[in-house]
């Protein structure tokens, strides 16, 4: 019942990863008790007969309730087309904006224009229908300022951490506000450009590695590195 990979090893699609009683997590294909990688991944072998396959590249697939950072790419008669860094372009209907614009002020580009960044929530998505967004909740809507940082969507949850620990830690230590979109777009809003640049550096570095065991520890290390760099 062997395992054919070691931790940190890159595996290609179709490559045999493990056999027998091993438990494989991540994208794989099974043939009987043989497990093959399905996408280009890094393997992490865990002690308890477990192998984790971490994809090196993965597109963002929207999921109901996700907070995303969208970019308005077109304005229609009753909706905005919003790019959410996904193969599926989202719609924001005028009925999902609060306060609801009166019918006579339906010049929608006066509300959101092409190029505007929005913090939005995914209302619904299935593969047959385009994702629908809403900005009707508090803290959602147009992002007026801040620095946009783009990271791998599959790794962005690190910036939030367990129960938001990492985001809270970064906000506090660095004095910035963070909007973390599940689609790999993070907005850093700080008091000064320097302040924002430092936070952007930490966010970028935090999402570079395919696998991080303890995101909070990693974030703390990176803040130290960043502070040394910026003071030098």
């Amino acid at each position, binding site marked *: 019942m062997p395992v054919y990979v070691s931790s*940190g*090893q*890159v595996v*290609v*699609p*179709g*490559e*045999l990863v493990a056999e027998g009683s091993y438990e494989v997590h991540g*994208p794989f*294909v099974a043939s009987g008790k043989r497990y*093959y990688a*399905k*996408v*280009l991944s*890094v393997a992490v072998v865990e002690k308890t007969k477990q192998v984790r396959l971490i*994809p*090196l*590249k*993965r*597109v963002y*697939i929207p999921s109901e309730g996700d907070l995303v950072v969208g970019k308005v790419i077109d304005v229609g008669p009753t909706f905005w087309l919003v790019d959410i860094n996904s*193969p*599926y*372009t989202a719609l924001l209907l005028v009925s999902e904006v609060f306060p609801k614009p009166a019918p006579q002020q339906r010049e929608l580009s006066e509300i959101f224009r092409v190029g505007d960044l929005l913090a939005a929530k995914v209302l619904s998505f299935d*593969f*047959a229908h385009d994702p629908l967004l809403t900005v009707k909740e508090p803290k959602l809507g147009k992002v007026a300022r801040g620095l946009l940082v783009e990271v791998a969507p599959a790794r962005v949850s690190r910036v939030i951490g367990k129960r938001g620990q990492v985001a809270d830690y970064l906000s506090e230590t660095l004095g910035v506000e963070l909007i973390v979109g599940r689609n790999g777009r993070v907005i850093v809003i700080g008091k000064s450009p320097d302040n924002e640049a430092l936070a952007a550096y930490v966010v970028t570095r935090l999402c*570079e*590695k*395919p696998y991080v065991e303890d995101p909070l520890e990693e974030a703390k*290390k990176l803040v130290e*590195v960043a502070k040394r760099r910026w003071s030098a």
Partner: protein
Amino acid sequence: MTAGAGVKLLTEDGRRLDGRALNELRRCRIEAGVLKNADGSAYIELGRNKIIVAVYGPREVHPRHEALPDRMLLRCRYSMLPFSVAEERKSPAPTRREVEISKVIREALEPAIFLEEFPRTSVDVYIEVIEADGSTRVASITAAAVALADAGIPMRDLVAGVSIGKIEGKLAVDLSGIEDQHGEGDMPIAMMPRLGEVTLMQADGRFTREEVAQALRMAREAILKLYEEQKRALKERYSKVLAAELGEEQ
């Protein structure tokens, strides 16, 4: 009339014009992740062949009416740069040959891809031949599979291809341009290397039943070698990235 009349492709001791044995591949070198814009990319040198492949996707299908409700749309475009050929400059407009090759390459890659994973999206494979010296379609497939994997496309296996030719009555692996031009037959074959299944097979020229069987065996053997190079290219590309990330922090 034999097509080979006049040009001698084998020496007295059975070597080919470039010194290779009949079952010998030309030097093959693949590089993964060579372009910044593309979601996945690869560059292959097989002998003097130089081919670059870019993969974009999965992305929104454009034009939208081409989208498929239950799976992603795979599109391939094989094209030869006007200066890639030994003869006079080729017109840049797509030829019938390029249109057909684009189709068979797509159908060689499709069996390896989990198309149902991302409905209503497309994956576009763009292949440009920079320098051609025989067997470009199969070399393109070998590189395209690496570019698809590099783009993170879910696959059951890679795909690699080789041409088996007939020169002076003998089967030979990986035809060069001159062998293709003066040989008696060409049989391009692509397989999913691990699964051993054939995803492309064409032929021109005359082959006996035994020769077809032998060609498949020779192809399989060569494809397994190409598969090793495909894996090396992908692993090396990302092992380097991983090492750099781990190293910098210390």
